[in-house]
């Protein structure tokens, strides 16, 4: 490939573009809050805000904005907002409460998150996140989230990967469910009060811009197929991550990138798309038609030990292999953190032993996650209380009981640190368009620590966006709700309509799902846990061929005027293919290894990732440059004022 893959763009200004407040890191958020323009209660009632997505970020933002007095229109493709994929988060939520008296603090949570992210996150955002974390727990408890408690009636904590303190709050293995249902209960409360309107079974297919500002959306009613225009004074995307580009991931099967990808094509920058987290402990793939990978919570690594037989191809039953003939490779390689190393480190280690030929039969792509020692030491009752529902789930899927046999696990795509680029105010590069939660790129750098996604989603929604959106709206007092009969709305709707008609008219031979599986294979094999220039160039070529084939040969049955799940899938997959191309280009351009992004050419002699701060201490903020043209690479320099990036070591 000799053509240019990208075009060098500009360097973003930390004040003008990124909007990072002045002052020492501990004071930035306070200073911001003290000086941000406010909108009076009477004026808030005159503003309408569109929120897309009802997961932790979208639900908490909707509730918080409605409480302030704004009119909120909340859109979800689900039949009920309660079903968003935050519901599946298992392990927990971090907060710098230091209830355990083990030396935790806001500073430590901040530092752990920066280090966990391999120093590729924006310092000011991460500090703010750590600072807000305790309030999230206070509020969640106040609205009835049944967190785990000690016998004395106070809250319990546990540990997660990449940290040495116990700061994770949890509700058995269903923390995401309980936090989401809590946030949704507040959505229902404000729905009952008439401040939120909920639009279930509506999928957002484009963002409408008027004079360069986001002023509305085009949504498809998934029941009637009708395209509808909705106007708002601002639009918030809380649509989650894009891990499903890899087809098999731990995401829900309908999770998709369409809203953020459409926003990108309308001019919003896309930050660090190649930072895709592969979670070490998912159930192994067992058959070719598997529809998803199921996660086994990282919390299991608190008590579980990861191992393979020391003898390659050992066919003995795991319980018959004595301890000295087992290779506890994480404990051996990383004595300080042992089984609790961060996700990227654990995933790569598991892949490494499997690539060395130690993987478990029959596929060679599995290792043991063994809790039998812990059951013996702590007793069944204690383990049951901590992980009961996870054990049940494992047995349902595999037909094997973790009470009797060690679990088998293998890494799977889980979370995307990349996402729409946003400023400190969570605003994208399109004025009036905000991105929160996993949909943005902001807080996790090149690797997210466990139990931090729930924290970020709720921090963005409950506590950050409600302040920062005021800065935009305060300048727009008296501005009328845009007219949905305007040319901009009509034109955008027409473009959406034409795309749907095109998908339906191809009438080829291949169902959308098959394209999705092919894309997934390309990305997993060549843009997955480890990448090289060679594999990436190969992937790029294959994705481009796949795109051509898709638009020639996809078969979408049915029509557009009813429930048509094939049509929904086809539209999402078309976007995943394009996004897959950008993920690959981003991975190609970043000639270093950091966090989840491991380039084979850049490793130490011991096989550890080699970060190159001199050249790559920046956020890649990709800008769309028209169909068929190479994207523009803008750079936001990462300035470390409070801490000094070090070589990450968990040994």
């Amino acid at each position, binding site marked *: 490939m000799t053509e240019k893959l990208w075009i060098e763009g500009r360097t973003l200004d930390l004040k003008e573009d990124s909007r990072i407040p002045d002052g020492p890191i501990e004071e930035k958020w306070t200073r911001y809050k003290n000086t941000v323009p406010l909108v009076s209660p009477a004026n808030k009632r005159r503003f309408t805000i569109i929120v897309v997505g009802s997961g932790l970020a979208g639900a908490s933002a909707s509730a918080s904005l409605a409480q302030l007095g704004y009119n909120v229109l909340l859109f979800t493709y689900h039949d009920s907002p309660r079903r968003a994929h935050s519901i599946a988060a298992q392990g927990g939520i971090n907060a710098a*409460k230091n209830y355990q008296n083990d030396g935790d603090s806001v500073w430590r949570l901040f530092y752990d998150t920066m280090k966990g992210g391999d120093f590729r996150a924006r310092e000011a955002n991460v500090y703010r996140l750590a600072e807000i974390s305790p309030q999230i727990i206070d509020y969640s408890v106040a609205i*009835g989230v049944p967190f785990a408690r000690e016998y004395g009636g106070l809250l319990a904590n546990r540990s997660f990967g990449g940290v040495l303190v116990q700061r994770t709050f949890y509700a058995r293995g269903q923390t995401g469910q309980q936090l989401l249902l809590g946030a949704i*209960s507040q959505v229902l409360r404000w729905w009952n009060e008439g401040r939120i309107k909920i639009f279930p079974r509506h999928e957002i297919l484009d963002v409408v811009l008027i004079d360069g500002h986001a002023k509305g959306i085009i949504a498809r009613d998934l029941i009637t197929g009708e395209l509808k225009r909705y106007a708002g004074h601002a639009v918030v995307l809380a649509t989650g991550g894009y891990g499903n580009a890899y087809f098999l991931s731990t995401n829900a099967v309908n999770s998709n990138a369409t809203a953020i990808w459409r926003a990108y094509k309308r001019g919003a920058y896309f930050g660090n798309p190649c930072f895709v987290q592969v979670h070490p402990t998912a159930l192994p793939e067992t058959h070719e038609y598997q529809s998803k990978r199921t996660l086994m919570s990282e919390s299991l690594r608190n008590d579980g030990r990861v191992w393979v037989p020391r003898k390659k191809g050992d066919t003995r039953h795991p319980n018959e292999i004595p301890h000295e003939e087992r290779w506890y490779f994480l404990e051996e390689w990383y004595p300080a953190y042992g089984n609790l190393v961060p996700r990227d480190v654990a995933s790569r280690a598991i892949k490494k032993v499997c690539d060395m030929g130690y993987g478990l039969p029959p596929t060679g792509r599995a290792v043991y996650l063994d809790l039998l020692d812990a059951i013996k030491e702590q007793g069944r009752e204690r383990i049951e209380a901590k992980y009961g529902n996870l054990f049940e789930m494992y047995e349902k899927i595999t037909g094997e009981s973790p009470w009797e046999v060690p679990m088998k696990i293998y890494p799977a795509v889980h979370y995307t640190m990349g996402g729409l680029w946003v400023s400190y105010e969570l605003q994208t590069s399109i004025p009036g368009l905000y991105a929160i939660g996993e949909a943005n790129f902001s807080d996790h750098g090149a690797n997210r620590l466990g139990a931090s996604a729930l924290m970020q989603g709720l921090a963005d929604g409950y506590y950050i966006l409600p302040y920062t959106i005021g800065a935009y709206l305060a300048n727009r007092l008296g501005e009328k709700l845009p007219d949905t009969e305007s040319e901009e709305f009509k034109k955008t709707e027409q473009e959406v309509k034409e795309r749907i008609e095109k998908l339906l008219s191809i009438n080829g031979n291949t169902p959308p799902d098959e394209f999705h599986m092919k894309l997934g294979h390309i990305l997993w094999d060549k843009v997955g846990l480890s990448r090289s220039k060679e594999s990436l160039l190969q992937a790029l070529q294959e994705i481009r061929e796949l795109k051509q084939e898709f638009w020639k040969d996809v078969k979408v049955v049915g029509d557009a005027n009813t429930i048509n799940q094939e049509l929904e899938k086809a539209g999402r997959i078309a976007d995943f293919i394009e996004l897959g191309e950008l993920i690959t280009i981003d991975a190609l351009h970043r000639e270093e290894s950091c966090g989840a992004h491991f380039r084979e050419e850049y490793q130490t002699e011991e096989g550890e990732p080699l970060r190159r701060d001199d050249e790559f201490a920046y956020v890649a903020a990709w800008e769309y440059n028209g169909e068929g043209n190479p994207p523009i690479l803008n750079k936001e320099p990462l300035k470390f004022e409070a801490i000094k990036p070090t070589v990450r070591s968990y040994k």
Partner: protein
Amino acid sequence: MSEKKNLRLTLKVWRQDGPQDQGRFETYELDNVNPDWSFLEMLDILNMKLVRDGKEPIAFESDCREGICGTCGFVVNGRAHGHLHKTTVCQLHMRHFKDGETIVIEPFRATAFPVLKDLIIDRTAMDFILKRGGYISVNVGSPPDANTIPVPKHNADKAFDFATCIGCGACVAACPNASAALFTSAKITHLALLPHGHPEREKRVAEMLTAMEEQGFGGCSNTYACEVECPKGISITGIAKANLEYWRAKLKGH
């Protein structure tokens, strides 16, 4: 992971084009069903076959496929989510079926759950119940420190047992009266067991039970069918607790 041989199945599936259509069963033969497939993966594969033949695939809903989002759910051989105890249909695997078996698949049926297409139903009525008080009215801001009010571990654990409801509607489908008593009482009980829920408990129970009736769900006649089919094992004692809450509210003049 099992070494059982592949299955040959006959599927009788409810097909209905839209809410107004009368609907009918259609029969499909499926060969080579891998026992390690989940029930929904089996339908995915059947659908891919249908699409390749230019036919409309069977419309059914699912999302997380981990048994927690509550999106999936239909009746398999007369049982909501199938015959396996405490299991959503997305977690039901084909190893629990026999070679040569005929499987009948139809939507959850209830007046309050109109069929939209094939196996997809409209469960919005459940949100309309929760809307009427299934929450604690506390504003985002600065609530007291989370450890200010201790909650006995026993109560917190019990509250969780009810809060774990996934809102799938299996309880309604299983009930001869199509009652949403288990669903409604789960939320009432969850919040009644926590001190934080106490300021609004009387209003909550009165409003939510009224909303349940208004939405077209039947009353509870203690058949226990809901408890049997609930994929999260929610106990029918919640209904007793909600009744107690109701009379408590009455005595207090609500």
